[in-house]
């Protein structure tokens, strides 16, 4: 093939024809073209106009959407281009809440960086809109609309990669904004807290909910015993915050830093991941034996769990009942370790360092509370830990590594690879194969499920039985897979789901840039640790064995179920929506009958039930004593149509043909 060339800044450049766009050609030459809205993993949006280059005719063209062609001549930094970029930045800054010194994103903000680099010295325009309220409703994400530059990165991330689509543009022209559906607080919409929007936001418009203050407070409280757990994916990423190589293991430096801050105990979440493997794989084997509720979906990813609760009520019983490693860790320490060490439970403060923003939400879930306390008290992300290290002035580079506390600091390689997509499946296989075959497993590497592709499938013949696995990451991929499972186009026995692309290593709490390149290195880092570890199977972790001996007896025992398992329920997809009633004003002594007209119940005929009830009330002349309401989702979807009489949810729903009966048996007696 003949070589093809184009010209960039009067320099001949060879093009292969495989480059996505001019931007890539120029960046490959070592010239940085600034962008806000271009990300190789998202669709081309073309809105920020920062990547404009000048063509031969002196016109500016966006390099993100232009394919290189032989003979093309472009320039990347002419006066016209520089003036345009500077003006764009000036225009953005004018409407931007410039509280840079106190902004979370300061130092990591693309707008700030480019404004400095492009030499924007002065902003000649005043803010056009009054500042809007900051949305702090979510446990994981803070949204500050005053810093949004409307690049739409979060919108595309949320819909294209995560398939959730909670963020969207509203209005147009000067009033355009990026908001959750109906401009509701994030906590009231479908958000699964994955934090991918935060990772991609170029400014401080979307940030991680800061929980470091809570942690500092606990650390400085002499009464509190602070127990810290560090998740697997944190160790291979935190170095990036300190300009270290991606993927290297900084677990022990992190331990040292936490100890310097005053943590009483620092352990490894990989330990409780080992525990999860044993519990979850046992649960799986039981299901396989009984042949029920298959495929078993993993439940260690809180983003996925929330997604399933909001979108897949039909699959909830297929989710493993195991708590995630983070929550198991909390339960073990508060229920077992505290007693053992004679620490009053109320004085024990469990902090998790997680690559994940959804873990913050998970820790606050009411389901994660037994014996009237939460398993985990505070969750900070990798990025927040780095911030704490900087805040304390610790020179991370010069830090002497310190070892984890024992005995829960010990973990198997299986627990470590939990941090990457495919890791949970592989860890479970290392357990399940041994249990099913009754023979010692020597080859522990299941390479079929490794790698960062969105969907991996494998079938293993174990002791004459085919076990079909799917490993999926990214919720958009998950959505597609679930559709196929629902349509019975595919069938599996075990499905590992991670909400974030590539698994926890690509979590929303990880350092930025959080791109596929960095994820590859982080993933490799975890497999390297596994390769070097002496114990590679969870069941061989001596601490785990001890835990069962001293406390839990056997996997899936009643004790284990009480402490380490949980349950899931339907969750409203959107909150704060009620439909006005048809009744008159003086509603004081009325019986309120609420009928759900959410999608699920509606399709089951709830609207007809409601109409019939209204008709019956009229017939019996009790219209003035009953007030009818249509409502959205009473969180009883599987038994719909759901009806609530005053405050009592009629649990088994009322089918259309039962309306008359329901009216006679439930409504009429109440009226009389």
């Amino acid at each position, binding site marked *: 093939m003949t070589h093809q060339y184009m010209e960039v800044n009067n320099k001949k450049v060879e093009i292969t024809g495989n480059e996505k766009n001019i931007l890539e050609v120029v960046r490959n030459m070592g010239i940085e073209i600034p962008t806000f809205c271009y990300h190789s993993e998202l669709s081309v949006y073309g809105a920020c106009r920062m990547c404009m280059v000048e063509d031969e005719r002196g016109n500016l063209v966006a390099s993100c959407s232009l394919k290189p062609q032989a003979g093309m001549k472009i320039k990347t930094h002419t006066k016209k281009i520089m003036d345009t970029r500077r003006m764009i930045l000036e225009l953005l800054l004018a409407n931007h809440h410039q509280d840079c010194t106190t902004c979370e994103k300061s130092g990591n903000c693309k707008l700030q960086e480019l404004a400095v680099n492009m030499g924007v010295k002065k902003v000649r325009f005043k803010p056009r809109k009054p500042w809007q309220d900051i949305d702090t409703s979510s446990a994981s994400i803070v949204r500050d609309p005053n810093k949004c530059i409307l690049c739409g990165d979060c*919108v595309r991330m949320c*819909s294209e990669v995560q398939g*959730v*689509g*909670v*963020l*969207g*543009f*509203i*209005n*147009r022209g000067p009033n355009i904004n990026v*908001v*959750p*559906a*109906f*401009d509701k607080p994030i906590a009231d*919409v*479908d958000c699964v807290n994955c934090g991918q929007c935060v990772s991609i936001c170029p400014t401080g418009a979307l940030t991680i909910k800061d929980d470091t203050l809570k942690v500092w407070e606990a650390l400085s409280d002499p009464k509190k015993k602070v127990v810290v757990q560090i998740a697997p994916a944190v160790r291979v990423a935190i170095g990036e915050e300190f300009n270290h190589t991606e993927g290297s293991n900084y677990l022990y430096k992190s331990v040292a830093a936490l100890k310097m801050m005053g943590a009483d105990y620092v352990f490894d979440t990989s330990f409780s991941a080992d525990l999860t493997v044993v519990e979850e794989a046992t649960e799986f084997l039981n299901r396989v034996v009984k042949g029920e509720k298959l495929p078993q979906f993993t439940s260690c990813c809180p983003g996925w769990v929330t997604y399933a609760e909001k979108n897949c009520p039909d699959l909830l019983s297929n989710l493993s009942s195991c708590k995630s490693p983070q929550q198991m860790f909390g339960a073990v320490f508060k229920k077992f370790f505290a007693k053992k060490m004679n620490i009053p439970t109320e004085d024990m403060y469990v902090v998790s360092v997680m690559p994940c923003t959804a873990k913050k939400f998970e820790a606050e879930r009411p389901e994660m509370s037994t014996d009237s306390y939460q398993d985990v008290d505070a969750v900070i992300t990798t990025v927040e830990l780095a911030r704490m290290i900087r805040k304390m002035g610790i020179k991370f580079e010069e830090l002497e590594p310190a070892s984890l506390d024992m005995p829960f600091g010990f973990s198997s390689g299986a627990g470590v690879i939990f941090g990457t997509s495919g890791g949970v499946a592989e860890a479970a296989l290392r357990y399940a194969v041994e249990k099913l075959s009754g023979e010692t497993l020597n080859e522990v590497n299941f390479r079929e499920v490794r790698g960062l592709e969105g969907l991996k499938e494998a079938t293993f013949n174990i002791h004459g039985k085919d076990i079909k696995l799917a490993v999926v990451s990214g919720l958009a991929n998950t959505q597609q897979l679930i559709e196929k499972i629902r349509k019975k186009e595919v069938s599996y026995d075990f499905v590992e789901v991670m909400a974030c692309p590539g698994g926890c290593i690509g979590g929303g709490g990880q350092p930025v840039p959080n791109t596929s390149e960095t994820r590859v290195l982080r993933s490799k880092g975890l497999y390297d640790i596994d390769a070097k570890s002496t114990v590679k199977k969870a069941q061989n972790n001596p601490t785990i064995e001890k835990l069962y001996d001293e406390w839990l007896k056997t996997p899936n025992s009643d004790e284990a179920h009480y402490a380490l398992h949980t349950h899931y329920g339907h969750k409203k*997809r*959107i909150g704060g*929506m009620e*439909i*006005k*009633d*048809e009744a008159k004003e003086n509603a004081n002594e009325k019986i309120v009958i609420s009928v759900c*007209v*959410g*999608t699920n119940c*509606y399709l089951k005929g709830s*609207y007809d039930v*409601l109409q019939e009830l209204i008709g019956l009330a009229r017939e019996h002349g009790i219209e003035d004593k009953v007030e*009818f309401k*249509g409502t*959205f989702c009473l969180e009883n979807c599987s038994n719909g149509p759901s009806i609530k009489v005053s405050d009592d949810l009629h649990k088994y729903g009322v089918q259309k043909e039962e309306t008359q009966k329901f009216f006679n048996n439930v409504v009429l007696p109440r009226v009389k």
Partner: protein
Amino acid sequence: MHKTKTVQEPLRNFAKVKEIIEKYGTERSALIPVLQAIQGEFRYLPQEMLSFVATAMGIPQAEVFGVATFYAQFSTQPKGKHIVQVCDGTACHVRGASDIIKKFKKDLQIPEGKTTTDDLYVTLETVSCLGACALAPAVVVDGKVYGNVNFEDVARIIVTMKESDDE
């Protein structure tokens, strides 16, 4: 053009929305026609209807809301029983449409910063070009076009509009 319904629309008729969706289908490209039909029915797009449309058509709620707020034809706020549209296209503008708008605003007692009277009686909208430039300035009340409108006409138009209530 606009159906006159009682102002306090109670329990919204989901059956109607279901019918509309069945008529247009659940293809993504049917979204705008569906919203137009709902708006035609209710004179605005109630939030719960949008939420219902989103689930029924399998489109994220945020996107449905995004479409509903992008186009000038849609309103997520209840509109008045009567709709007065004053054209502010170029031809109308140079023939004094802005004064006509002011006059309507005053005579209809539209509160400052709003487009609809508090009792949901009338909504005043400015529209960009009705294509009736020869009649500039043009006004449309409940679908009826009035051309070459001057100050005196405004009062007359309002009287006619009010008279239609009795019919």
